């Protein structure tokens, strides 16, 4: 007798089901191509640093704002992870709280980064280092803004009760994006703030 296909019973483990959603797969490959964008950006940085035969950068940047800001961004990844867990467990209010905390931390990161930009003595157009610094951190900021818009939209949908079905994996998929935004910041941070001290 030919094998039959049956609807799988709900085993209570929604996270297993995540991989059945096309959106989850789509997000993974979006992240892959975005990661490639940053890889080429950082390649450009290192290429120009190597080809530039004088001191690069002329003075190593201060970590006074950047280090705490990095920690803030990492904490926001934890809160997104927590929000996702709450959502999967069906606790929608907690999920909204977790997302709201992440948005709050993201906004703080954004604001502190603006101050950091403002404090710089160079501009986008002053020299290759300035062009690289503002372009790469600018690319990252754009990704932060997109992440914030996504999370704000999810809070809205949760509040409206549109994400009541636990099989709707929107929150988990968005979480992948936000983790990516945080992880890629670590590579940017390492490149601009740590490598100058290593040479």
């Amino acid at each position: 007798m030919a094998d039959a296909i049956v609807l799988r019973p709900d085993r209570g483990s929604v996270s297993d089901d995540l991989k059945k959603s096309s959106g989850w797969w789509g997000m993974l490959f979006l992240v892959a191509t975005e990661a490639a964008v940053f890889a080429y950006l950082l390649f450009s940085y290192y290429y120009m640093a190597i080809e530039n035969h004088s001191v690069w950068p002329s003075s190593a940047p201060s970590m006074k704002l950047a280090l705490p800001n990095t920690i803030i961004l990492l904490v926001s990844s934890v809160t997104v992870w927590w929000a996702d867990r709450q959502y999967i467990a069906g606790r929608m209010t907690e999920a909204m709280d977790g997302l709201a905390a992440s948005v709050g931390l993201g906004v703080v990161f954004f604001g502190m980064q603006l101050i950091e930009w403002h404090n710089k003595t160079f501009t986008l157009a002053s020299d290759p280092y300035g062009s690289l610094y503002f372009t790469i951190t600018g690319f990252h900021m754009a990704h932060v803004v997109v992440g914030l818009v996504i999370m704000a939209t999810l809070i809205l949908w949760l509040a409206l009760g549109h994400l009541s079905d636990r099989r709707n994996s929107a929150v988990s998929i968005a979480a992948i994006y936000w983790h990516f935004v945080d992880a890629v910041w670590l590579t940017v941070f390492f490149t601009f703030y740590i490598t100058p001290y290593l040479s």
Partner: protein
Amino acid sequence: MAQISAIPIVDATPELARKLDGIWTSGSGVLGWLSSVDHKSIGIRYIVTAFIFLLMGGVEALVMRVQLARPDQHFLTPEQYNEFFTMHGVSMIFWYASPILSGISNYIWPLLLGSRDMAFPRLNALSYWIYLFSGIFLYASFAAGVAPDAGWFNYVPYASMDYNPGINIDVYSLALILLGISTTVGAVNFIVTLLRTRAPGMSINRLPIMVWGTLTASVGNVLAVPAVSLAFFLLWLDRRFGTHFYDVPTGGQPLLWQHLFWMFGHPWVYAIVLPAMGIVSDALPVFCRRPLFGYTVVALSTVLTMVIGFGVWVHHMFATGLPNIGMSFFSAASFVIVIPSAVAVFAWTATIALGRPRMTTAFLFFASFIVMFVIGGVSGFMTAAVPVDWQLTDTYFIVAHIHYVLIGINVFPVIGGIYYWFPKMTGRMLSERLGKWCFWLTFIGFNVAFLPMHLTGLRGMPRRIYTYGPDFGWNTLNMISSIGAFVLAIGILLFLVDVAISLRRGARAVDNPWDAPTLEWAVPSPPPDYNFVVIPKVASRHPLWEDRLGETGERSLLNRGCSLDDGRETLATTSIDAEPDAILKMPEDSFAPLILAISLSGLFVAMLAQSVGGGVLALCVGFIAMLTWLWPERVTFRPVEESHG
């Protein structure tokens, strides 16, 4: 314990077909057309649009061949000539070569894979609309007399603001970034479609080679396209915002452009030939009346070619004064990449030698492709050697090489593929009589035009010069090439005539006119909107040849399977073994992809015009379109599993 309910396995009946028709058919009229997300309709739009770019690029080439036919011609001014060779290259390489393959794959994939649509039908529509608008964006500049004019690889510093102050280069930069978005979303769609929406039983060792080709190209695109988009974005910043990525006086690096461009460029070459090679690997055996010789090594060499293809980009830069050790490495890698290509050549040759070839038009295009693949491969192999490259780079030898690669390995398989699949797409056969004329004119014209170009290059004629003196020894060769180009053009014209006549008066096609082995030939010609009345279950690589091949006792089930008729649905299977995994709820038709594509294109127009207000407006409209698109109103999937009873 939750209850287990079986998904009914039913026969493919006319009643079920009628029900599915009601569920899947797009609305009629212009609005239905604009909102359709059917992969077949999108695939045909892609093919038609790509052919229009092929024709425009072809006309540009003919104008150039008139200019070059004799020495000291002034048919075009040097400035016009620059625009013509740039637009020719850009149209052919970016707006024809890849989109035509996306179009064919878009149409054929779900049919080959036994699915009702691609994994992301709306993304598919978005990908097409962005492609179309990016092409209009590009060609609007030609109409306005400000077309790109720095060659398709657009080297700085010539493409920088100091030497090229108009908006020509900005148009090219922004149009290509826009096209890159289309390519990327399309590539992600192909990858997820492959991983998710195959018929049960179609494990990865049963995939048609064309699927391997497009999958490999798509993974390559996902990783490589960002390099060129970034290169052009940085160039745009340099030109419009005074950054210093490429300009020498302030410490910028012109070679950074070449690195970023060719890190993309070389994988791209494979992205626009591997799916076409896949077409040959699948369709050539049909006309040889036997399975492809060496399926496994051909599949593996397809993937391997792309992997090595990421490590050969510097062979485009041998003349830029790089260190010897680096050049040696990239030279070696460029030699090595010949091996997987040669594997495929031997597999095709063996398939012909061991089969009983039928000399159809499609067969002729595929078989001649092998010859040109070898010629283009050998000229590429020659220039992998650094000293030979120094002699030949920027001469017509390279022009000959790239045309053997792109026309030989892309255009010939594509036209052959259209002769092969046209009956499936339209329900009508193309004319074999006209087809043979088309083939011989195309084949002879192409070789008359491009074979002598190797010699023109060896005699030292540089590419991209708008004219030459009468005493340089290039007169006869150029005249021959120009004559060949026009013969080639007549061949292509004849193909279009054949299509136009056959669409109306061609013989009616049966379901499987070529007696081919794969799933697309199990459905009517043209296929219904829902593709398959029931989701088939696949037991081998050649579902329609199983009785004759007798490889296993198992048989594919084509007329009995899941009906999945509760709204638009298709089956998701596991990535490697293709076991049933979930029922995917497929989206309805929608205007959101069109509106998002319009707003995105509007954003790029605003960037070109440096209009902040326009940009903000475009972003807002785009955000609203995305909100509507993604608005959560339905369950997206229901998990299933196989019960072994």
